[in-house]
């Protein structure tokens, strides 16, 4: 056992990259849940984003176009969820699960031609001399553009929710849709937009896996990341910056686990893999003292004639 082989700087840089897919997806889901909707279809939207982004990046040769396509793909699939839950007033839990099933199948069908294909690579951002700063350079200035986009998205969501009228309306709809409706807000329209935003973010998160982290396309390649993103939103108690923190924590546990194994430390892998979920439950219990944490209307169906 030799812990000195673990380089903390590289570990942090690696976990930032590893955390980006869940960060993107969870930020999107946070907005959805703040609007009072629980969409359990994150996994399905991510995998569809993964193939849409991959296919378009391969066809056009541009990873950036791929990410745009991934966002559109995710948003389109989430629109299906919006139709079911907002227009047809179907149960959100069941619709979300069905969405995941559908997304996994559809992505596999779309991706049949792309197995074994190598996608175009997205280069890292060029910060010039900044990247050479010791410690901070590798951690802060050595990544691809989407990683920075993910962090910027967190900041944007935070600012929007906190300081803007849009954010206020969104939160009002999520807290009490009947009251928001009485105030004249279009609950269904706002929620549909929030759901599509969530879909777009999840799609980009999926594409980050298929275009940057792995990069390749294979069926079912998101391997449950969407479910972790759902846990993360709760862990973060629906607050954007805590999503960032949580994503790094969740990503960090996996990275640390792998690094410890490499360093020859015998660790019970399964029990470590459980820990993010157990921590999330503990956080939930702690949060329960604060009754305002969860959006009041989360998961409830809204119909105007109530």
């Amino acid at each position, binding site marked *: 056992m030799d812990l000195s082989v673990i380089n903390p700087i590289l570990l942090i840089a690696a976990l930032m990259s590893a955390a980006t897919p869940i960060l993107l997806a969870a930020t999107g889901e946070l907005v959805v849940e703040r609007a009072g909707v629980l969409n359990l279809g994150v996994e399905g939207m991510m995998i569809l984003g993964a193939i849409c982004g991959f296919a378009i990046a391969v066809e056009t040769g541009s990873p950036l176009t791929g990410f745009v396509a991934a966002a559109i793909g995710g948003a389109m699939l989430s629109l299906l969820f919006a139709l079911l839950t907002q227009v047809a007033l179907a149960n959100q839990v069941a619709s979300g699960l069905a969405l995941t099933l559908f997304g996994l199948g559809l992505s596999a069908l779309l991706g049949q031609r792309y197995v074994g294909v190598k996608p175009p690579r997205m280069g890292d951002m060029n910060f010039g001399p900044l990247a050479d700063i010791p410690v901070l350079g590798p951690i802060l200035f050595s990544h691809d553009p989407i990683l920075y986009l993910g962090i910027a998205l967190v900041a944007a969501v935070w600012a929007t929710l906190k300081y803007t009228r849009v954010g206020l309306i969104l939160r009002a709809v999520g807290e009490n849709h009947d009251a928001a409706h009485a105030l004249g807000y279009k609950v269904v329209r706002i929620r549909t937009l929030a759901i599509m935003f969530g879909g777009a973010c999840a799609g980009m998160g999926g594409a980050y896996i298929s275009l940057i982290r*792995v*990069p390749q396309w294979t069926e079912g390649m998101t*391997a449950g990341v969407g479910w972790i993103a759902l846990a993360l939103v709760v862990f973060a108690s629906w607050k954007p910056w805590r999503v960032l923190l949580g994503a790094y924590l969740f990503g960090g546990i996996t990275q640390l686990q792998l690094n410890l194994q490499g360093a*020859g430390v015998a660790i019970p892998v399964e029990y470590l893999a459980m820990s993010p979920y157990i921590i999330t439950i503990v956080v939930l219990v702690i949060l329960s003292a604060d009754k305002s944490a969860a959006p009041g209307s989360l998961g409830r169906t809204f119909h105007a004639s109530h």
Partner: protein
Amino acid sequence: MKLITLLASAAVALGLAGGAYADGHEKTKVGFVFVGPIGDGGWTYEHNKGRLAVEEALGDAVETVYVENVAEGPDSERVMTQMALDGADLIFTTSFGYMDPTINIAAKFPDVKFEHATGYKRADNVSTYSARFYEGRAIQGHIAGKMTKSNIIGYIASYPIPEVIRGINAAYIHAAKVNPDVEFKIIWAYTWFDPAKEADAARALIEQGADVVLQHTDSTAPQAAAQEAGNVVTFGQASDMGQYAPFPRVSSIIDDWAPYYIARTKAVIDGTWESTDTWDGIGPGMVGIGEISDAVPADVKEEALAMKAAIADGSYHPFTGPLKKQDGSDWLADGEVADDGTLAGMNFYVEGLTGEIPQ
């Protein structure tokens, strides 16, 4: 009941019961049960290539059918039964977890031949087959030992089962033989296939100084991670992963089920099929060694090819003594060769490997 019988016979008369009977039983029907999707680019992908090779080689004499993503357990029993009912003459079940289901269903269909991959239970109409992937690992170990400059070789392992442990031992023995300073860093990923996790594992190993990464998981994610790092050597696993050649991928172990599948199907056609236990390696072609690229120095390549030839003709066995176990106790005396029983159930590291096998 009468109505149902009537409906059933009507369905058959209308040709609704599937196309299998339109041309009678002239064609030999071969079924394949797959544990993953055929698009996984690894394990199932290679088995499906074997299926396509059977169609190609035997043409009109055969018809193949397959079902993918079949869960181990009752679903696999149902799929096997369904294939047998639909007139399959030979069924390949391609995952270890199908072992007991295969035995169960084979007992119900004594006239149908079954072939179970990687298992150890046989019957009069059930053969088993598996590949000696460790032979390929030995060659990889040799190249890895020669190629490493940091003397640190990373190994992405899947589950702590004999097959994987055998691979680690075979690679280590031959790496240490040419480079006594070599050290193995092993990460257990607890998955056969999870590209994101494999990529993370590869990066963790590379960050810890590994400049060769061996993998016993099936995706190309570690190859891409190595390419990104720039100076790290990798080997293809399950399929050739040639899109990463000539570097970082310098060679590969290829699961090549085609020769076996064709031979066994022919045996059924000729009526010469018998229950057997096949554990084939490089010699019969079940384990393929992907082209060794020019990134490997010519002399190393020559040695590797020589070892491949020696293993293929049986003059060299990768587990030849003197070898000790990790705890220092004797395992094989000088010149002694490991028996298949020990190899099949291998649950220990050889001397020199550090760390413990997780339990």
